[in-house]
């Protein structure tokens, strides 16, 4: 092909232009690739785009902080039975939305409403029609429904009974809760814990009263944090679990409360409470050798699982509500007088009335008993005698003793809200009043602590209820309760003398405490009847306006147990005197404690055995097992298999102790003659009998004759001597 020069140059021109274009394209391409590369480096190294930190965002995206909830510690009694423990409760709900279908097409909504209503009605004790109504709401778009209070706080057993029916669309949510298996058991002292919503929306159990509040931090433990990486669907990525903070379960708390004595005390107090309907009652049993509180309770009380009765009484009366103790203070006054060398028991004085300034100190019997000795005055609980003793010592000395006995200051029991008490001590009449327990307020804990000096050798021991606190994560004991001396109020000699006077108070023919005798033991006691200040600030009139109390120790020579009972403003019930009523609590509990002590002392610790599991065994096998272990089986019911037992599995028991077994439901009553009160109580618990007792010691008579058929809920009265 021939090309003219013109064409030729045009062709070259075009080629040159195209090459120029190619060079521009080269540069543009270079720029594109370099810019993309820079942008890549910028993001991958800088990890920030538009001021957003990519690394932080991804961290948040992939990782989920899962809280591992710490288990709240268990509170145990002295036999290691739980008093308070963690549990779950369940709330049932039903999904109605028909679009809720599982991965395999299985419906996740209620398909058979009639059956669901039937099953739920049975399990929740709720009307079937009402449930059917809830399952068929007017609003057809309702996603899911719940069943009100009846569908909440369900036990695992109820949940399982519903699950057994395999209902589609019926599910449960879980709530952590606190279970108090005994129901009423030193309730104000143990307190309670309730689910509390935290700031983050999670709930935790928080102690609100008593030990639960006092040791809330130790009981709570520390929640752990688990970090988990997951993909976009929430599946955990392999090897990505990481414990950022291990969970630390709460410490277990072992109290000094003896379950047998505590249960007996609760039972006896309930009977008395029902009968006399006092404003309130307090009782406490102390081991004077160690200071351990073995049993303590008050009325009104509450069931910590159901919270039933909590409204009636929030105050822990053991430490939080000081009151004028009345004549139980006289033991202290007598101790001060003896210890300071002023007491001459055989000296006499004019009883009845005694004028101090413009005021009169009256005896409870204003006519008096003529001129009597101070010793007799104490036994007759004479206020005038105490006023004289106080004046002989002088207010300075007396005040020193009040202080040394630990009044007017906290015992540092550790229980929340402990009060100090107050005193009016300016005028001679006020000073004299304090000597017989008026014009000074104390707490039961203070009074018990003061009396440990009299029960012992003059050394005051602090009452305690925390045996030990154990960290379950390490098994280490982080706290161990021990006998703590808090002062030497009086000499050992003085203590013995006071105990002699208190023994006279029970055993002298004219002594006021004759209702508190216990067979086989000498009892040292002092009662008190304090007038209660009414709302108008004046002492009220009448028997139902007094705080009645008794403090006693057994055996009088060398007391092992110290017990205090108060009954505040009881109704007058003419069957018995107030001291006889009081002994319905004091006598049985003290007797049981002494019996247990004797059993332990006689047989020694090495012969104690643990109760085996008998539930489910045949009656014959159970009988043989127990006989082989030198235990005494008591079987109620005509069934073939054991359905219940007391004491529970693992509890310690002594040789020849009775083990109560229930077989079936056709129950005939056993002859209880010679049984201790603890045995009778266990028997009543196992058979569901409502027990009433009178007297103390061992069973002599029972209101239902042996061999008669009984039903749970039947009343039975057992007399003890």
């Amino acid at each position: 092909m021939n090309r003219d020069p013109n064409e030729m140059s045009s062709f070259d021109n075009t080629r040159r232009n195209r090459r120029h274009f190619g060079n521009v394209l080269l540069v543009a391409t270079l720029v594109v690739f370099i810019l993309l590369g820079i942008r890549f480096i910028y993001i991958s190294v800088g990890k920030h785009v538009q001021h957003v930190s990519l690394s932080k965002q991804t961290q948040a995206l992939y990782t989920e902080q899962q809280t591992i909830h710490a288990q709240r510690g268990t509170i145990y009694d002295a036999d290691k039975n739980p008093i308070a423990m963690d549990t779950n409760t369940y709330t049932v709900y039903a999904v109605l939305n028909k679009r809720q279908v599982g991965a395999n097409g299985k419906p996740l909504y209620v398909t058979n409403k009639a059956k669901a209503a039937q099953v739920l009605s049975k399990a929740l004790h709720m009307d079937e029609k009402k449930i059917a109504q809830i399952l068929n709401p007017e609003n057809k778009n309702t996603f899911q429904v719940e069943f009100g209070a009846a569908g909440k706080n369900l036990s695992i057993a109820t949940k399982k009974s519903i699950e057994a029916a395999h209902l589609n669309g019926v599910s449960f949510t879980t709530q952590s809760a606190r279970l108090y298996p005994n129901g009423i058991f030193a309730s104000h002292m143990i307190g309670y814990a309730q689910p509390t919503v935290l700031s983050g929306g999670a709930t935790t159990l928080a102690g609100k009263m008593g030990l639960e509040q006092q040791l809330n931090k130790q009981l709570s433990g520390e929640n752990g944090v688990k970090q988990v990486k997951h993909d976009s669907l929430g599946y955990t990525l392999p090897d990505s679990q990481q414990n950022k903070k291990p969970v630390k379960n709460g410490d277990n708390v072992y109290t000094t409360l003896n379950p047998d004595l505590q249960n007996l005390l609760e039972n006896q107090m309930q009977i008395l409470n029902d009968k006399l309907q006092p404003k309130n009652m307090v009782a406490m049993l102390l081991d004077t050798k160690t200071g351990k509180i073995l049993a303590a309770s008050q009325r009104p009380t509450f069931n910590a699982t159901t919270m039933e009765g909590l409204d009636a009484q929030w105050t822990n009366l053991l430490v939080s509500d000081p009151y004028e103790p009345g004549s139980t203070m006289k033991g202290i006054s007598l101790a001060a007088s003896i210890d300071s060398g002023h007491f001459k028991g055989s000296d006499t004085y004019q009883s009845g009335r005694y004028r101090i300034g413009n005021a009169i100190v009256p005896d409870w019997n204003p006519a008096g008993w003529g001129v009597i000795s101070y010793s007799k005055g104490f036994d007759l609980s004479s206020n005038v005698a105490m006023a004289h003793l106080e004046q002989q010592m002088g207010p300075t000395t007396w005040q020193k003793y009040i202080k040394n006995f630990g009044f007017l200051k906290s015992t540092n029991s550790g229980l929340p809200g402990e009060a100090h008490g107050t005193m009016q001590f300016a005028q001679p009449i006020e000073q004299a009043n304090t000597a017989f327990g008026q014009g000074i307020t104390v707490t039961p804990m203070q009074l018990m602590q003061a009396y440990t000096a009299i029960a012992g050798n003059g050394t005051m021991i602090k009452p305690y209820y925390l045996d030990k606190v154990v960290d379950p994560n390490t098994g280490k004991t982080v706290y161990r309760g021990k006998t703590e001396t808090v002062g030497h109020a009086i000499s050992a000699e003085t203590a013995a003398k006071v105990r002699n006077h208190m023994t006279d108070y029970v055993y002298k023919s004219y002594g006021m405490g004759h209702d508190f005798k216990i067979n086989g033991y000498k009892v040292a006691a002092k009662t008190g009847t304090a007038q209660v200040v009414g709302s108008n600030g004046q002492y009220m009139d009448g028997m139902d306006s007094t705080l009645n109390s008794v403090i006693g120790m057994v055996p009088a020579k060398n007391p092992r147990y110290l017990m205090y009972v108060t009954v505040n403003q009881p109704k007058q019930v003419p069957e018995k005197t107030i001291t006889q009523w009081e002994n319905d609590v004091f006598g049985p509990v003290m007797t049981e404690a002494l019996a247990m002590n004797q059993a332990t002392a006689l047989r020694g610790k090495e012969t104690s055995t643990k109760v085996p599991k008998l539930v489910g065994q045949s009656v014959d096998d159970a009988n043989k097992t127990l006989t082989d272990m030198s235990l005494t089986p008591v079987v109620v019911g005509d069934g073939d298999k054991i359905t219940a037992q007391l004491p529970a599995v693992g509890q310690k028991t002594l040789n020849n102790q009775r083990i109560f077994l229930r077989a079936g439901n056709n129950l005939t009553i056993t002859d209880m003659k010679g049984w201790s009160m603890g045995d009778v109580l266990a028997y009543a618990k196992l058979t569901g009998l409502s027990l009433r007792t009178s007297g103390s010691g061992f069973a002599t008579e029972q209101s239902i004759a042996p061999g008669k058929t009984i039903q749970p809920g039947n009343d039975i009265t057992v007399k003890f001597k």
Partner: protein
Amino acid sequence: MKKLKLVDYYVLIPYIVLSFIGIVMVYSASTNVAASTGTTAAAYLIKQSAYVVVGLVLAFIFFRMRLSILRNWRVVTFATGGILFLVLFVLVFGARVNGAKGWINLGPVNIQPEEFLKLYIVLFLAHYMDSHQFSIETHYWRTMRGALALLAVLVGCILIQPDTGGAAIDICIILIMALASGNKHNVPMEILTGLFVAYIGMLSILSHVDLTHSFFGKSYQIQRFVAFVDPFGTIKTVGRQLVNSYYAISNGGLFGVGLGNSIQKMGYLPEPNTDFILAVTSEELGAIAVLGILLLIGTLAFRAIRLGNRAETAYESLMCYGIATLLTVQTLFNVGGVVGALPITGVTLPFISYGGSSMLVLSMCMGLLLNVSAREKRARTA
């Protein structure tokens, strides 16, 4: 076999290496996709390997063939008719994937006409402009309008699929090649400068306009712009892809978390084995590896332009420019989307992303480059 000695290793080696990286990354990036679609990552591995093998065969054929065959009027007519049929067919019967009809389902294999259209545009324009180079010089617009009209129809079909990204690449190729006629001196520089200014202008306008709540806010295409401008503000919706791409790149850092260890591919990042395979690569192998991939693709584009510059004929020259543009623009659109420099347009990354049509077309392109290179070498040595 003489021709084999004339193989251009600046083309062959990047091509082979990139294809191999592609196979590895498709395998790695497909694990979660496979799990959710009921296949296995190995199935993706096998398919992609097969595409590479078939691609190598095609590359060899295009390397060995006489280029004049491609300019035979029968071939050109057949190709034009074929591509028109495919593009229209896909518009009517195409399988809808991610809201766009881009695929023709042929049992185990899906054909994506857009990929073939790109090659068609390159070859058709090169052929047309070479054939009409003298009249172009004198009557540029009158000469070009017929060809441009045909291409406009084809690209229009792509645009209404809608495949905005594919159409944009097509338009870029057409634009660059149309400008490469060589009849004016400074036009390309002006055009490129203009494009750059337009890009900066777009960025500054978009960052000051509240697109989300504007009248256009509902359009899907506009939403992509919203996501591009404010990905973190729209993290739950349209911004999700870009943000997760950022996360992947950030996770990987310079050296990566290790092959197979990407977290982002586990459902966070959409299309981990196609559109966002580079983000997964960056996470697993690090930004360094990504730079390596960009370097290899860049080498191919460079080599293509250099071959275009040296080419004797306008046809070869324009074809090389076209292929260079195809590689560069497609890479720019894909990587630009991944790093938030451009709106996400659903464009795959050459050689690396999973996909048969793309791999076959690119292999043919590589064959053509090797063919041109061999011719030039022979011409020089002759």
